[in-house]
């Protein structure tokens, strides 16, 4: 069950002992009873009506009944490195991390070096805020077992699956590498001053300005066939600094994405239609919602929160991520 519900409906589900993954505005989540749930703040959703901003309802992912055993954990910066070790063998884990928090930055940069990285399915999202209310309350995550609210911690639900089922994570990325310059960096991070353009050290802010680059298009790296985006956040021409929504990594070769025509058409084309019924959880990126004007437009029948970052084993950007649960044949 994946759709928007009122606070009272969600509280009823919690009282019934249902296991829930939730997304909604902070003032709504604060009204929930303790129970078997985790949540993150966000008011943007892909609902059955299409993309929407909704400050009155909570998006609910209810775990199927065949998932009997779960483990809910909170993580601090000092313990997030254990997240890939904490999942059930053959299970699935979902994590929510507040945007712009130290743990968000730490996870984004260091996750690929954590023990057991990507050895177990880990999906998740970065919680956020209403962009029209920035400067007010920041992004948070909620730990339902005791209604703990964290602005610099992660919450995770580790799920054990029956022996006859398996989970798999995949992504839908409408962007691919363009045929322009190869861009590399000499350190890992969310901000850079210099880049190597085809091997030549260059002031990256100047390069973007002088090349007339559309920063709505992300940088794209080819991860052994998976296209992984790094989205531009801001360019400070005074400081000569370029900020991203996800870290660039030293040694990875990036290219600016090829332009996309119509987002919804492209998205629908790339969505594996035979998988939609098996999708257990998915989320899409706020940048896709904004840049592609997704309000009121359906994206292949997929529903879920629209987030400040997506996690498919590691942090990705401008990407729809989804987890399917299927029976072994």
């Amino acid at each position, binding site marked *: 069950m994946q759709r928007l519900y009122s606070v009272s409906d969600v509280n009823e589900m919690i009282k019934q002992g249902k296991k829930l993954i939730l997304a909604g505005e902070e003032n709504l989540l604060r009204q929930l009873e303790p129970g078997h749930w985790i949540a993150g703040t966000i008011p943007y959703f892909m609902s059955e009506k299409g993309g929407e901003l909704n400050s009155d309802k909570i998006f609910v992912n209810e775990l199927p009944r065949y998932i009997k055993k779960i483990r809910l954990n909170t993580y601090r910066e000092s313990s997030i490195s254990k997240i890939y070790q904490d999942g059930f063998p053959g299970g699935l884990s979902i994590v929510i991390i507040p945007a712009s928090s130290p743990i968000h930055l730490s996870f984004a940069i260091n996750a690929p070096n954590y023990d057991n*990285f990507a*050895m177990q*399915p880990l999906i998740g999202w970065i919680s956020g805020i209403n962009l029209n209310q920035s400067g007010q309350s920041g992004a948070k995550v909620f730990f339902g077992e005791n209604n703990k609210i964290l602005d610099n911690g992660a919450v995770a639900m580790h799920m054990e699956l029956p022996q006859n089922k398996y989970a*798999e994570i995949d992504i839908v990325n409408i962007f691919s590498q363009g045929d322009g310059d190869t861009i590399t960096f000499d350190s890992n991070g969310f901000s850079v001053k210099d880049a190597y353009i085809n091997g030549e050290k260059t002031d990256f802010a100047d390069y973007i300005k002088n090349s007339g680059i559309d920063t709505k298009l992300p940088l794209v790296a080819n991860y052994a*066939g998976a296209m*992984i985006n790094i989205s531009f956040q801001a360019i400070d021409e005074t400081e000569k600094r370029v900020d991203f929504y996800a870290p660039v990594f030293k040694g*990875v070769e990036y290219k600016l994405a090829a332009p996309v025509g119509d987002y919804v058409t492209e998205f629908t084309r790339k969505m594996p239609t035979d998988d939609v019924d098996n999708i257990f959880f998915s989320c899409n990126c706020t940048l896709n919602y904004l840049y592609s004007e997704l309000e009121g437009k359906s994206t292949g029948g997929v529903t879920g929160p629209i987030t400040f970052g997506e996690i498919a084993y590691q942090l990705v950007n401008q990407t729809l991520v989804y987890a399917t649960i299927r029976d072994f044949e």
Partner: protein
Amino acid sequence: MEIEKIRKQVWIDTITGKIDCEFEFLALKIVLSRLRLNLKHDSSTEAYRKYIDDLKSLFIRSQKIPSAQNDLKKIIGRGGIQ
């Protein structure tokens, strides 16, 4: 177990990209990409041993997942087994 029969050189060729297939399993793509990046910084014998262990470990944990099985078949098809 086919995974244990795969020659060390096949794992090495997969990590270096000499065996380069169109893989399906997202976890494999991400792990492989990370190993290839690590290889740029450390190509010592000890590092290779760890990279191979990581790759084998992923396949052992995921051996019942169809996309991982398909990718393993592609690797074996390119590199053979003992």
